[in-house]
Each structure stands twice: as C-alpha cells, then as structure tokens.
C-alpha cells in the first residue's frame, strides 16, 4: 500500500462523521465528500443511502433537479457538503468572488444550492483542501451562505465541521466559532495557527489528537471500489488520485 494522500485522510475523516446516518447527499464539485459518502455506505453495510448529484446511472431522484432541495426541506437528508473559495471563522462561505463582486479580482462559478441547503440540512460538513490564510479568512468577501442566523430565522440545519488538508475543526454552534478537533499527520498547532486566517478555539490545546489515518482496509476500499464509482462523475479526480504511478 503506497503512502496515504491528504485526500484520503480527508475522505476517511468525513466518512467517520457520516456513521449512523440514513441519507447523505453530495453536490457538484465534491469528489472528496463523494468518496467519503461512498466509503461510509460501504462501511454501513449498505444501510446508508447516498445521493450523488451528477451521476447518470441509478439516479436517486426522479422528480428533477428540484428534488434534492425538496428532499432536504422535508428533513430527509441528514448530511451535505459545502466547499468555499473562502471560509471564515463564523462558517460563512464564499463561492462567488474575491474583491468587490461588481468588479471582482477573481470570479468563481457561483453559489449553487449552498444558500438553501446550509439552512436545511442538519449536518453540513465544510471541506477545503487548501488550508491557508488565503482560503480560511477572517471575513469572506461575499457571503454565498451564512454560517449562522438570527434566532427567528427558520434554520434546522447548519455547519457541523470543517475538514481541510491540515486538520479537522468542529463547529461550535453556541459560540459560533470553529474548535480544532484533530491534526493531520505532520501538522502542529503552530502550523494551523499560522495557516488559518480566522480565530478558532483549541479546547484540547497541546493535547489535540492526530486525525485518524485510514488503515489498509479503508485504503483498499477508497482506491478500489470507491474509486471506480467516483470515476463516473469525476474522471479527472479519479485519474489523479488512483492512476498515478
């Protein structure tokens, strides 16, 4: 078994957060969460239902593109995943642009369904492999979807965790801040502090544990059947991850 990749650590970390759930949906541009959901399904013995957007064979939904959103609003989706060009310390995410949105320095695809699903899915797991002051910022330039809401705003869902290429944060709903949960191999608390643009809590301080690295069995699943399944939607990701020498 060759060396464990950062993506594989992220996949395993996310898969663990899906244990015991009934139905997980995965949106666009989400190969790492997609792989994690498929791994979690394997580990569940098939009891976890996974809805992969963009998959053509075996559709989960038969009522058109709106069904994902309706299904979430019905409370039938337990977890979803959102990325962000920028993510800030209040778990706001930015999928739109850097700088003034009318004269952006950089423009990204757009908000997709984030502004809705972030409110309605109980366990939204944020992911961003690049962990740097550029991606994890004090305040996003554009709020595609806010991390927290006023108490009178209908919001059964919200942020649950943030998984990066360096660590895992929990989101503390009460304090409206991230709390460092575990460090990926070779990362130190100082690394995280230096590379993170927002303030976060570190309840375990120096005792913050390492992120569990996927064992051989998990790696074989990720690189074998999971990789084959994810290839239908993300051929380039699969090629980069699994076909490299």
């Amino acid at each position, binding site marked *: 078994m060759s060396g464990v990749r950062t993506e594989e650590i992220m996949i395993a970390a996310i898969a663990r957060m899906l244990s015991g759930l009934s139905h997980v949906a995965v949106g666009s541009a989400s190969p790492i969460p997609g792989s994690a959901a498929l791994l979690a399904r394997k580990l569940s013995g098939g009891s976890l239902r996974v809805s992969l957007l963009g998959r053509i064979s075996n559709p989960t939904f038969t009522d*058109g*593109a709106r069904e994902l959103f309706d299904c979430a609003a019905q409370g039938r989706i337990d977890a979803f995943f959102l990325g962000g060009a920028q993510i800030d310390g209040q778990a706001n995410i930015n999928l739109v642009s850097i700088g003034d949105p009318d004269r952006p320095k950089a*423009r990204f695809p*757009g908000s997709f369904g984030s502004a809705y699903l972030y409110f*309605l899915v109980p366990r939204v797991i944020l992911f961003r492999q690049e962990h740097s002051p550029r991606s994890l910022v004090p305040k996003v330039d554009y709020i595609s979807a806010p991390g927290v809401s006023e108490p009178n*705003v209908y919001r059964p869902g919200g942020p649950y965790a943030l998984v990066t290429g360096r660590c895992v944060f929990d989101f503390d709903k009460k304090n409206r801040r991230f709390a460092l949960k575990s460090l990926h191999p070779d990362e130190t608390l100082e690394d995280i502090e230096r590379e993170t643009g927002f303030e976060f809590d570190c309840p375990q301080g120096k005792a913050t544990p390492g992120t569990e690295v996927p064992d051989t069995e998990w790696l074989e699943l990720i690189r074998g059947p999971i990789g084959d399944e994810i290839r239908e939607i993300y051929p380039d990701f699969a090629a980069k991850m699994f076909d490299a020498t």
Partner: protein
Amino acid sequence: MTDILKSADEIAASIPDGILLALPPEYAPCAMEAVRALVRRNAKDLRLLGVPQFGFQADLLIGAGCVTEVETAAVTLGELGLAPRFTDAVKLQKIAMRDTTCPAIHAALQASEKGLPFMPLRGLIGSDIVARRDDWQIADNPFGDNDPIVYLPAIRPDATLFHAAKADIYGNIWIGVRRELMVMAHASAAAYVTVEEIVETDLLADPQTAPGTIPGLYITALAKARKGAWPLGVPDLYERDQEHLKHYAEKARSVEGFDAYIEQWVRHGSQHA
C-alpha cells in the same frame, strides 16, 4: 401544433434576439448544435437563465458576444475548472450578472408554471445573494410569528432550448428522469428542442414512455440533430467528449484562442460527425 423544422440552424433562426432564454445544466442534454447555430447567426442581446446552472453552452454564447445578462446559480466547466469566457466577462463587466441559488431558480420557474406571481422559499436570509437582489423581498410568513421568508417573483422565460434523445411526430419529447426540462417547457412562453431521432409512434400512448415525456402541447418547434449535444453527452446514448472539452477549456483561456475555436468548430459547422 409543434413545428417540425429541418435543422438546428432553423431552430436557432426561430429564437429571436433579446429574449430571456432558459438553458439546462450539462447533465441534462444541452442543444449544443443549436447553440452553435445561435453563434453562427450572430444572436444578440440574449439574457440567459441557467436552470439552475450551466457551463460550456453559456461560456460559448458569452464568449461569442451573444449575451448581455446572466442569471444563474453557477457557470462552470465542472472538473475542467472555471468557464473562462464567463469569468472574463464578469471581471470586465461585459455582462450583467445576477447571482442566485439553485432552488430559487427552480421555485421562480415553478411560480411561472403555476401562473403565480411569486413563490416563497426557505433559506437564503443573510446571504449576499439576497442582499444584492432588489427584485426579491423578505417578508413574514403570514401563518407564522416573526418568521421571515424570502418571496421570489416568478421567472417566465421567453423561450427555453434543450436537447433530448427522441421526439415523436406529434411533438412529444422523451426526457426520462430529466424533469427540470419539463418545468422549463411548462414555465417558458416557447420551447425549442433538438433531438437525436423523431419516431412515428406516439410516446404518450405507450404507458412505458409516457411518464418520461413532455407533451407536444408545450413544444413550439423541434428539429432532428444527430449528436446534437456534442461535445456534451446524452444519457444512455453517448458520453461527454472530455478530450474536446479540455481542448476548449485551454483555447478559451484567451480571446484569441476562443476566436480560433469558434472559427474552427462553430462558424464552419460542427465537425464532429
């Protein structure tokens, strides 16, 4: 009655300049040959609606100067990265961009489908999407107590354009599970469709095909266009031509490269056959 036209170019000729045109995402069949025909006929001032997002077809139309305005939840080439002509056009303020979110597009089209002036939608509050939309309102749920909810005005596209595996001679279109295409046809004033084949049997008369069929009642005109979605795919018929799309993504990084692409692959007809 649905007009059965001769070619994707005749479809493009039927779509007027200046309209609000609803287009599907890349996973529903896109009428790429008709989109190329729109570029060939130098379509102007189109306002595009991504239902709820789109990629290659929007980038092509934007790059070719056919578009003044875009409302969509995203423009992306998927794994191939950003849509370069879209990105440039926003940065250079060549198009007016109205950012939105997928379910807001679906809801606003369903309002139109139902002849309603608006639809309410959960979520959204506190996002910059809402903050920057002066055509949306936030008001109280009339059945709630201090329960704000977003009100979205209906969107009624002047036309929609998409591709499908087959139609019949009565204008019925088989879309399978891609029911967002049905909402688009219901909600739009006109619907233009290209198809891989036109069959003689009535798709509504067969209980196996009827459930995945849009009745011809909603279809303004259709035309046969073999491999009409290329270089995008049609489920169960042919896959995306990922190599060609990579080629596009590279060429379209610059205006010159994009123009060369258009010259080679669009102006002189599609050369995929």
